[in-house]
């Protein structure tokens, strides 16, 4: 069993992180597919998949926010692959429903404009809901492995920290002031809060302010439940059988980001279970001979511009490959002895299960 396969075996949850455009979602799908082929019941959660990935997973109508079973031709007995897309707002609504005292409170919160902003646009919400979804799926008997790709944030810790974001938000003094029991309305607020709210109202307008205050009051009483749930989610993210895989492409900028992610994770005591580097320029044939590509044997080129072009081609590809291998050195050094996998740039598009399997072959061996 190779290194990355070992990570799958040792995990109940695999989190793929890395900067945007490095193939995180595809990697999550490849990991999920392989685990299913190994006999696990896997659900892959993606954030914002390109249409072609949904196609690749055999979901012609795109991914849905409910797990969809994907039919696989060859799997070990019991292996299943499911896929779903994160629905941030619906997940947040679900949390509100499960923590509210009664239907009336649910309705007041869900209809509130300030709440809709939190559920849809507040920074950190997407990460928080991804973690929340992961927790829910982890507890779902249908699955024994959850693979999730993270939102493309600059900071690996956004994801680890996300469940705490709302707690901290609710801990701000201003919200405590706003949530003091009143009959609503600015006039009844304590004198300490008044100048602040008046200034807020001046910038964003009184309607927007009134919405916010109404939200705090409607939310009152639910903070504890939310906080406890967030603590559970954080505990799962830090569990032994939750593993973080860093995904990168072999360029200096994305490697720098991946190294930064890995260092942050390590500083939190989480560690990187594997690094996967996508789209590395391949080498060709057996390149162990002494024909340095730039200086092909002169007699083979003389008089044949075609042959010269072929050598030139090998040389150009090799220059890129060397530069890439050099670029990814810092990430390799930081990840080892955990496994580092290099997936070559392919001469085909990823558009179906077969092409995911091709990547899997490079990642895991045949």
């Amino acid at each position: 069993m190779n290194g990355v396969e070992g990570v799958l075996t040792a995990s109940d949850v695999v989190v793929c992180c890395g900067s945007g455009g490095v193939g995180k979602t595809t990697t999550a799908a490849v990991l999920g597919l392989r685990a299913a082929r190994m006999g696990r019941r896997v659900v892959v959660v993606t954030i914002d998949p390109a249409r072609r990935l949904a196609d690749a997973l055999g979901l012609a109508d795109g991914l849905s926010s409910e797990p969809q079973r994907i039919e696989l031709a060859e799997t070990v007995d019991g292996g299943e692959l499911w896929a779903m897309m994160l629905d941030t707002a619906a997940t947040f609504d679900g949390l509100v429903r499960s923590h509210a005292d009664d239907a009336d409170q649910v309705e007041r919160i869900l209809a509130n404009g300030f709440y809709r902003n939190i559920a849809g646009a507040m920074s950190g919400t997407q990460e928080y809901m991804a973690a929340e979804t992961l927790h829910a799926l982890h507890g779902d008997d249908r699955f024994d492995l959850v693979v999730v790709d993270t939102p493309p944030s600059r900071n690996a810790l956004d994801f680890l920290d996300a469940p705490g974001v709302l707690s901290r938000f609710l801990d701000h003094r201003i919200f405590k002031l706003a949530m003091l029991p009143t009959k609503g309305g600015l006039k009844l607020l304590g004198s300490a809060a008044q100048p602040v709210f008046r200034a807020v109202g001046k910038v964003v307008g009184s309607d927007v302010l009134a919405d916010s205050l109404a939200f705090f009051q409607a939310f009152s009483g639910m903070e504890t439940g939310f906080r406890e749930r967030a603590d559970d989610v954080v505990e799962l993210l830090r569990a032994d059988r939750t593993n973080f895989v860093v995904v990168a492409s072999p360029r200096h900028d994305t490697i720098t980001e991946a190294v930064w992610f890995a260092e942050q994770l390590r500083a939190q005591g989480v560690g990187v279970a594997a690094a996967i580097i996508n789209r590395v320029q391949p080498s060709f044939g057996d390149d162990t001979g002494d024909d340095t590509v730039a200086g092909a044997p002169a007699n083979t080129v003389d008089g044949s511009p075609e042959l010269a072009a072929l050598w030139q081609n090998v040389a150009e590809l090799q220059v890129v490959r060397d530069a890439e291998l050099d670029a990814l050195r810092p990430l390799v050094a930081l990840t080892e002895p955990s496994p580092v996998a290099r997936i070559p740039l392919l001469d085909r598009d990823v558009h179906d299960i077969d092409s995911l399997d091709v990547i899997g072959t490079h990642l895991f061996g045949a």
Partner: protein
Amino acid sequence: MPPESENPLPSLAAANVVVVAGKGGVGKTTVTAVLARAASRAGRRVLVVELDGKPTLERLLPPREGEALSVVHLSAPDALEEYLNEHGFKRIAKRLNRTGVIDMIGTAAPGIDDVVVLGKIKQFERSDEWDLVVVDGPAAGHAVTFLTSASGLGRAVRGGPIKQQCDDVLGLLADPERCMALLVTLPETTPVNETIETAFALEDDVGIRLGPVVVNGVDAGVELPDATTVDRVLAESDLDARQRARLSEAATFRRSRRSMETEALERLSAGLPLEQVRIDALPVAGLDADDVDRLADALVVSGTAR
């Protein structure tokens, strides 16, 4: 459709503010740097605005003799805090963060930080110091959010300084003389599909003028013989089997990648009736300042940066 061979700089920098937009990993920052350098070499006074993230453009755009080119870094949270301080929050400024007022305002009025950033860009545009402002924009999905922030917020907020700010920003975005967006993509299926979607979203939701599409990383390497010729040439050569396999595999790979590129570029031409400007792939794993200079010079000379 081959790229025009005339200098594309005038059409790439045809407004006071150029917002460079594209998904992560397509080379937005490269294009920002190349465009800024090319314009600055052509004698324009250029300001590059870098949003969020880690600063990289200063490294790619060091000062050069006889050119007026500066890089400024704008962070949305900082810009919002500064704005609030200037608008009546001075007195309670010290408590802003501690009490969570900034978080609250950002949540109550989503997009306010983007509008404040766009407001600063508008100030740069209006200042006499610069002829051209190039913005290294946010990633594609976010580019639409970023550029629609003013219309969304303008609807939610009915009066006051923020409303005024929204109107000013909308005035900038809607004026094709003052502002345009450049979409950056790679010659590959998924980036091309996403670029087409983003272009229509920007047109429908923002109404911003779209400049040429910049295709980054086009393979401009050695010209290869066709497959039959490769087979014949290798068979006639006195290379050993190992060398033949190596040359043949590499040629097959390069040809497949190129036909994928051609297909993606055709799809782009069919999907978007916009001029295309191509930037050649360099055999490196990340550009440095000299590469940017080279690409900028090549852009102006050949219509393709190589």
